[in-house]
């Protein structure tokens, strides 16, 4: 049968059988960034976004994503123009063999969409369905926290706000979020 869906912003019609998972279809069509780790939704390596929500594509029947908008790791950034989350993973050496990383990053971006300023514990909880065997998670959690700071910076720039030295601003923003003041706009 044919399924219409949008992958990384491009409308596509793909050939699929009823029993196919979204992962099967993605990988057959060249989106191999999503990895097959268990086929039971237990490892999170295959995490992608479906209509903005993180979904484990290996247990998502492809019939369920008809007309949906799917975003995969390939849709995020490019090697010389990384998404801030990807950049943070690179800068924090938060990867080794890398097999879990696409799913981890998709999960992390979903987290930061809903919670741009998570605590360490919130990061750990958000990622708790995503297994990693190499890193002990330490650098991954650090990377996501780092990304949150970076992306916050992005917002400021988009607003045309005053440029801050990364570190100072970070300090500011976490402090200010607590106090709920609007010093970001008005300066100190």
């Amino acid at each position: 049968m044919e399924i219409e869906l949008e992958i990384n912003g491009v409308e596509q019609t793909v050939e699929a059988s009823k029993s196919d998972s979204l992962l099967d279809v993605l990988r057959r069509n060249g989106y191999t960034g999503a990895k097959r780790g268990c086929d039971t939704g237990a490892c999170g390596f295959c995490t992608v976004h479906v209509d903005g929500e993180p979904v484990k594509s290996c247990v998502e029947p492809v019939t369920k994503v008809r007309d949906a908008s799917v975003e995969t790791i390939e849709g995020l950034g490019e090697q010389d123009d990384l998404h801030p989350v990807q950049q943070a993973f690179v800068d924090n050496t938060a990867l080794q063999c890398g097999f879990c990383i696409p799913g981890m990053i998709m999960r992390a971006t979903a987290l930061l969409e809903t919670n741009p300023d998570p605590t360490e514990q919130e990061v750990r909880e958000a990622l708790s369905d995503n297994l990693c065997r190499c890193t002990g998670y330490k650098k991954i959690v650090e990377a996501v926290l780092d990304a949150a700071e970076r992306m916050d910076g992005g917002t400021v720039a988009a607003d045309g706000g005053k440029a801050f030295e990364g570190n100072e601003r970070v300090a500011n923003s976490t402090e200010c979020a607590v106090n709920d003041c609007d010093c970001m706009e008005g300066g100190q």
Partner: protein
Amino acid sequence: MSDSDRARETSEQPDRTGVEDAAPAEAEKESEADVAREPDRKPESERDAITVDEEKDDARKIVTGEARYTADYRDRFPDLAHGKVVRSDIAHGYVESVDTSAAEAMDGVDAVITPFDDVVPHKLYSSSGQSYPEPSPWDLKVLREHVRFVGDPVAAVAADDPETADRAARKIEVEYRELDAVFDPEEAFDDDAPQLFEADDVENKQSGADYSRNLESHFEGELGDVEAAFERASNDEERHVIETEWETPYQSHCVPEPHTTIAYTDEDDRHTFITATQVPFHTRRQIAHLFDVPIRDVRVKKPRIGAGFGSKQEMAIEPIAFALHLAAGRPVKLEMSRQEEFTALRFRHPMRMQMRTAVTDDGDIEAMDLYTLSNTGAYGTHGMTVANNVGTKPLPIYPRVPNVRFSGDVVHTNLPMGAAMRGYGAPQGHFAVEAHMDEVARRLDFDPIEFRLQNAVREGDLDRSVAILKDGDRFTREIRSCGIRECVERGREVIGYDDLEQPESDHLHRGVGMALIAQGSGVAGKELGAAQVQMNEDGSFHLQVGGVDTGTGADTMFSQIAAEVLGCTPEDIVVIAADTDLTPFDYGAYASSTTYISGRAVKNAAEDAKERLLEWGSNLLDEPPDVLDTGDGGVYSERSGNRVSLEEIGYEATYGDDEREHILGDGNHSTDESPPPYGAQFVDVTVDTETGEYELNKLVFAADCGVAINPALVEGQIEGGEHMSLEYATSGDLTFDEDGNPEVLGFRQYGMPRTTDHPEMETILVETHEPTGPFGAKSIAELPTNGVPPALSNAIRDAVGVRLTDLPFTAEDVTAALHEQSAGDE
């Protein structure tokens, strides 16, 4: 963040590079000969490419999903067939018949193979990816008529798509004649236990084998006179004999990328494997031997690999893929399911160990005696060598103990196969030795740390226990670098050992445990690495190296070592690794050998090329080579300060008028040395005496891996190793029903720690200089897998006074131990 942390650490800890500063007296003891051996000792200020957090060369590809692992090559093979394995569903028996007719009749089925087919080799072999002849028995067949555990491969299918392959595999009917099975290693060892192997079922038998008792191997070795020492101790008031027992479970590697292989024959008739392996060259040899094709006709390529941890130090699935390829006449991909990973592939050997020491009132250890009974499961791959490491890795922490004995038995049961796994016996051994030492200290009322430091290894020690199972003293080693004391000191400080605050609740008790750790750097006298360097005209280099990056960042490390020698940046090095047709030989990624052996080969190759660079530099600068050196992307004169860039040299050497040369370098490395890296694991735990539950507050690991070529990658190794060690201590286990059927089928049933299960971790790097390693480096990857079980056992003992001896530790175990304790108290 970790960068700045480390920077701070460095500045706060001026003695970080401690060896020289800390002990001038010892430095003096480091004789003239040592200085001669260390041409590559570089103070921090002189290092350009090493001890730098160089970005991992594939990091960007990985985060964008562009890195290709084996299964991702599927689209390169339009006529790819997909394999599926049919596995035994009984624990022990013979295959009477295999009915493949229904499967063969299906549309889209390309091949069905059974043990009775000619295309399937009938030879015995070992899947262990080790040196040759393999120190593992040849007791396997590709497809098995005699099945010995639930999961043994019996038949296989190749079909046009994975779904058809699955359906066809299910249509294959296998009839068995069942035999009695045995699941407990001690029972298996009985004379009248069901026997897994007849005498001629095995070739290349290992020492001490006695298959009538299911004994795969037996070994023992002794230094001094252990019995005499215990005899004396048991009759002496001032001496004590303490004996303990320990037990460890199966552990799964949980490799993120399941075992995957694509087998095909290319347009140049080369039998090619794109395969997730740690041992391309061993696999090439093993495939050739097994299928009786010349080694030269086989090509094994390792693409990105989703980690190995030892499970891919095995030719686990390549033969089935190849047989299917030969039968189907087209490329075949065989990709394991997660369930197969948890039931049919490879695991850490479960063991039972006994440890006995004789100690004086002064805290001197006079004798150590360690015995292990290892359950190797249905087959003997890595059986003996893993069990050997139970003793030969941790016992050398105490090299001055005069009387040492170590012995073991490796026994078959009708359960899945034990095999290589990160740590390779050392995690089991460290659990026994380091928890035992803690117990001794506490029983004799020594401070556990002081007791150990009193006996622990020092620079200059002569270590004989590492070679206790070997004849002669060829592998006795001199300890030339040892930062274990600084590891303990700094770890102790960071964990807050000396001022631990107890929780306010009465039922909560906090404790800290420590374990000393040692590993090796490669298999002494059984490693080989080689590399070639080719210079491009733009001043960059192609580095061809057999060494295998399993995701650790080895390729990046190679580029740093080469760059340090050649005076360029790591980005100037294009690494081409682990392809048996293209790269020089390498034993593979195991035994913590990659940096030490392959890295050294890279260094040698780079130095060979550097000689030519200096020669060309000398031509161009008109100065003698001996005043020249490489650096900053050029060759410069130390005398005149003049310089010529590598790019200028590259163009001149390639296109110059007078003479031309392609600047090449090659390098080899083999050695009898295997210097131990050291570590100290600290665990801070709070135990709830009401529920038995415990919570890890913090893990601190201080490591001496010599000079860390890439500190960020080294930290990654440590944190990942601790993760695995944490699992071993707290949650990892496989269980089976009474018929030997696995009960753990996936991640859901297996206790792999998740982000939320992880306590805070802190890593400390203690730099020493190992003169035999490249730029002073030793290994790191395995070291941190050894520490959490003993350190946690010790911490719980510290917190609530009970000793846990069976991994993993559950709340029930704690509660039971507390009950026993209070019963004992009463």
